[in-house]
């Protein structure tokens, strides 16, 4: 942490706040239109895609290791501290997304376009597993039986083979990966465009 100076922490705080603005405003709006009990796809994809875009753009301006994770931690805490935001689900989702992005950036060592794209894809892809993990965590092992029965009965009701249900699930996962990848790509382009416009490349290297 000693490699982080005041500018690094301020930038982490700012991008954490930007992500939180999206979560608190657009997120609340989308949750109102599409309640989570009825919709598990659209809200997560939209929020995840924008979230990875913001966090990875922030990485351009705080080129220290761990900065994306810290942006995610700040956002998760803001979500937790916001009125009506005391929910375990979004907290875990935001932290996990930032952990996945950070892991890919750590493997890539230096910021690269492919790392942003893969990190973004994995982060939004987490949303797919998030619901299952959280349900397993909250409800215990009985939820596995519930999901299995729902897929089997749903397939029968719609006249589909169970393999078709698996195909639908695979398509939903793929859609998330694509959106996340686009989010990472946009972050790479956006960070570069802003850095060029402001005439700075590695702001964290400044004396403050």
């Amino acid at each position, binding site marked *: 942490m000693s490699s982080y100076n005041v500018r690094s922490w301020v930038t982490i705080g700012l991008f954490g706040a930007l992500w939180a603005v999206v979560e608190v405003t657009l997120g609340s709006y989308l949750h109102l239109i599409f309640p989570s009990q009825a919709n598990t796809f659209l809200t997560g994809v939209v929020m995840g895609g924008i979230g990875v875009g913001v966090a990875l753009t922030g990485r351009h301006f705080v080129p220290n290791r761990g900065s994306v994770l810290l942006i995610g931690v*700040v956002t998760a805490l803001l979500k937790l501290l916001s009125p009506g935001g005391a929910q375990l689900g979004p907290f875990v989702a935001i932290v996990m997304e930032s952990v996945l992005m950070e892991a890919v950036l750590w493997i890539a060592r230096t910021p690269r376009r492919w790392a942003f794209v893969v990190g973004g894809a994995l982060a939004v892809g987490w949303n797919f597993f998030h619901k299952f993990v959280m349900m397993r965590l909250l409800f215990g092992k009985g939820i596995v039986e519930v999901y299995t029965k729902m897929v089997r009965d749903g397939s029968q009701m719609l006249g589909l083979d169970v393999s078709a249900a698996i195909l639908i699930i695979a398509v939903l996962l793929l859609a998330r990966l694509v959106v996340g990848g686009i989010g990472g790509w946009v972050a790479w382009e956006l960070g570069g465009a802003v850095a060029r416009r402001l005439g700075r490349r590695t702001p964290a290297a400044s004396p403050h």
Partner: protein
Amino acid sequence: MSPWGYLLFTAWAALATTMTAGWWLMGLALVELAFGLMWSRRGLRLLHRPRFWAFVLSAVALGPFLIGEPDVAVGPLRLSRAGFTAGLEMAGRAFTLTLAFGLGIASLSLSDVVAVFDRLGLRGLGFATGLAMNLLGTLREMATVTLQTIWLRGGVRRPWTALRLFLVTTVANTLRYGDEVINAAAVRAFDPNGGQPAPLPLRRADLWLLALLAGYTGVLLAVGMW
């Protein structure tokens, strides 16, 4: 109670929920409610939310239909008693875990979070969290003004250009705002890596909580639940 007490309670309750089963979950829920009444009344507001109850009770509603073999007929419905019991336990688990989180960590204030980070040697993270919390409104306002300006200047006709302008302007303005904060911090000689952390001592209520949790853990161990 100090922030340590709330953190201890969250960790203990989360662990207890994963290791407890059956009717003992009810006992755990009662312990959590007692904690809420004594030290975290704000966290108990969670119980006033219909969404929370819809989430918890969905397990009770689905269990008899989706778990086990149907063995009871209620009108046209064929239900499973084992499924109802399993659903009840699932609901209890969701209730205790969600409540533990709401009464514990989620009851901490911003100053508590900053103080904990400072004590743990993460002064910079506490500073970033406090800064972010204070700038939320400003950044939201800035983004709204940017969007309205682009909209009024005919952004609707070229949506992709408008979107690009919006994103670049928002990020650039955010960074410019950051420069002002950095200057203010430099003037005040703020050092995120130095200085002594402020003390955050345990209070009498923390010790009472510790005794209560130790007692309940002892009971669970005695009955062989853990």
